[in-house]
């Protein structure tokens, strides 16, 4: 258990005791961090799951509407209709700190605030299905943005949890037992030395007494 590299002196013993205290403290803190991260992570996972389902359903619906539209209109017409967007999206990015993990927070605003302005074409030459499809797409886009934020948060948290978990385990199963072993080794060695000294002194005393009084 005790690695052979330690010299059994009082100074090293004191050093090791200090390190053990720090390791214990660090272990406790990291464990708390891991638990809190995990709690946050589970919330995010739950949210992600719901959003994922919503987005997938919404997109599928939007795409099927688009499919209908493309069946009605000629491909050239469709492309022409969508070629030049009236709308443009700008994304703001801020970071939020969750237990020292920086996770993105998106805020977005569109140039055109009027929701009816998403159609970049005149209504005369396009079919109503196209309007329908775009409307659905615009609606699901809100969820898609949130999904992006939640999913990224989830990935970043997962990474941090993995790291923290490893640190906790390394401290708990490697560092702390090793330090404890070394401390035990040194204190036993010191005790042994002490006993040896005591026995030697007794022996010397006996010899001196014998010399002085000629005991037999």
């Amino acid at each position: 258990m005790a690695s052979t590299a330690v010299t059994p002196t009082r100074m090293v013993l004191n050093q090791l005791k200090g390190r053990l205290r720090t390791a214990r403290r660090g272990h406790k803190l990291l464990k708390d961090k891991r638990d809190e991260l995990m709690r946050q992570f589970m919330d995010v996972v739950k949210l992600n799951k719901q959003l994922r389902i919503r987005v997938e359903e919404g997109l599928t619906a939007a795409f099927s509407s688009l499919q209908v539209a493309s069946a009605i209109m000629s491909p050239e017409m469709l492309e022409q209709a969508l070629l030049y967007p009236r709308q443009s999206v700008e994304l703001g990015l801020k970071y939020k700190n969750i237990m020292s993990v920086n996770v993105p927070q998106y805020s977005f605003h569109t140039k055109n605030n009027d929701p009816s302005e998403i159609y970049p074409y005149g209504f005369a030459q396009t079919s109503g299905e196209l309007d329908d499809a775009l409307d659905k797409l615009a609606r699901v886009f809100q969820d898609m943005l949130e999904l992006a934020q939640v999913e990224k948060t989830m990935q970043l948290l997962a990474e941090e949890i993995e790291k923290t978990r490893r640190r906790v385990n390394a401290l708990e199963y490697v560092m702390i037992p090793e330090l404890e072993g070394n401390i035990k080794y040194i204190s036993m060695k010191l005790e042994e030395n002490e006993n040896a000294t005591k026995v030697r002194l007794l022996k010397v005393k006996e010899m001196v007494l014998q010399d002085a009084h000629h005991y037999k």
Partner: protein
Amino acid sequence: MLKIAVIGGRETVMGFKALGLETCPAANAQEASQALRRLTRESSDYAIIYIEENLAVQMTGEIDKFKDSPTPAIILIPGREGSMGLGQSALKAAVERAVGTNILGD
């Protein structure tokens, strides 16, 4: 100001174009990974990149590279053929990574 890009089949991205997102039509995975590389190398202007699932399935290696960096967020979306469940499996992978086992029970 940051931008959002969509990589996917021509017909998939068409609708997003009308919403004002940047679109990169890609016919196959090779074109898609080229587009991805272009978007991520040119600048860090793109905060979110949506990739169609059926393209993403062949370029997981490149997508995983961005997993641990705060930007860009690469999000898989289902294509026209419907969901392949790839997004769900990404969620499962993240849980497994964090917890060590899959605790969602599915």
